[in-house]
């Protein structure tokens, strides 16, 4: 997926989606104690040699967290980075567990929804081409 010939990012649309779950995102970001207990519940984290990039907390903080902190004002390149996090490092199996009750899958799903709204989606065709 290239950035060429793509329309500008619709920041208002991103904000509109963020607003729907604003409280949930804000509370989750505030609540995360960085305890890393969610890591062990992620099978991708475990099968990728416990790489911190695959920790569920890292994934939601660097996707929806980034979007929230920047109030949706992101570039296409930044959105494409987020796409890599929410698609390549998460399969949304919904098995991650947070002892503090953060609903990580719904936050990742929200980040994906924002990416989709800007036509920044994972290209499965490209993935298979390698």
């Amino acid at each position, binding site marked *: 997926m290239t950035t060429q010939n793509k329309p500008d990012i619709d920041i208002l649309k991103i904000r509109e989606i963020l607003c729907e779950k604003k409280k949930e995102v804000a509370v989750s970001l505030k609540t995360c104690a960085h305890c890393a207990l969610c890591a062990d519940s992620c099978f991708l984290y475990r099968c990728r040699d416990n790489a911190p990039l695959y920790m569920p907390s890292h994934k939601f903080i660097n996707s929806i967290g980034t979007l929230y902190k920047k109030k949706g004002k992101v570039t296409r390149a930044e959105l494409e980075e987020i796409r890599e996090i929410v698609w390549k490092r998460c399969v*949304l199996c*919904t098995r991650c567990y947070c002892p503090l009750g953060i609903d990580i*899958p*719904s936050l990742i*799903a929200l980040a*994906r*929804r924002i990416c*989709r709204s800007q036509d920044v*989606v*994972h290209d*499965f*065709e490209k993935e*298979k*081409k390698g």
Partner: protein
Amino acid sequence: MIKVKQKDLKIIVRDIHDYNYNQILIVGCGGCASVCLGGGQKEVDRLCAEINLVFKAEQRPGRATGYTIERQCHPLFIEELQQMIGQYDCALSMACGAGCQYMAELYPGMPIFPAVDTVSIGIDRDIGVYEERCRACGECVVGYTGGVCPVTRCAKGLFNGPCGGTNGTMCEVKGNIPCAWVEIYNRLKEQNRLDDIKKIRPVMEWQNQYQRTLIQDR
């Protein structure tokens, strides 16, 4: 993964025409249907454009809108439709049969039509080339058939084959498909396990198939 194939556009449009629905919501699935290039966001956008072209050509007031959720088989993701679904006359699901049925269950007042056919559980041979490997019969026997499924790969689903109609190494039902039991024989021979093929296995209990619910109790 589950493989889906888009239905013929004429069939999809016929369903909508039959009931004179004008506002159509096309719902994609970000799971298996996306991976097999059958019902993800790209495919939703394409179908949307095609249906809108049909509407335009027929000078109908209708309009199709596309929306893709992460998975249609999970409550966490499908509830996203709650806010918007009431604005439409009907919905076209581009998920597998499970996703389509789940959406119909959650929104019983909304007519849901499948825009794809669920074809198989299969492997990715190449981009867009998928081969069926499993029919989810619920009683896997590939341990004694050398990893070749007789339910899926044998046209007759024989558990104690071959049938006697084997055409060389090919299936007598469809000539361009290898006989599953020849493959099973070769595989077992390679593994020095030909004794396995001589054992008579009980046939699959196909009668009275009922809906299965799985509870992982570990």
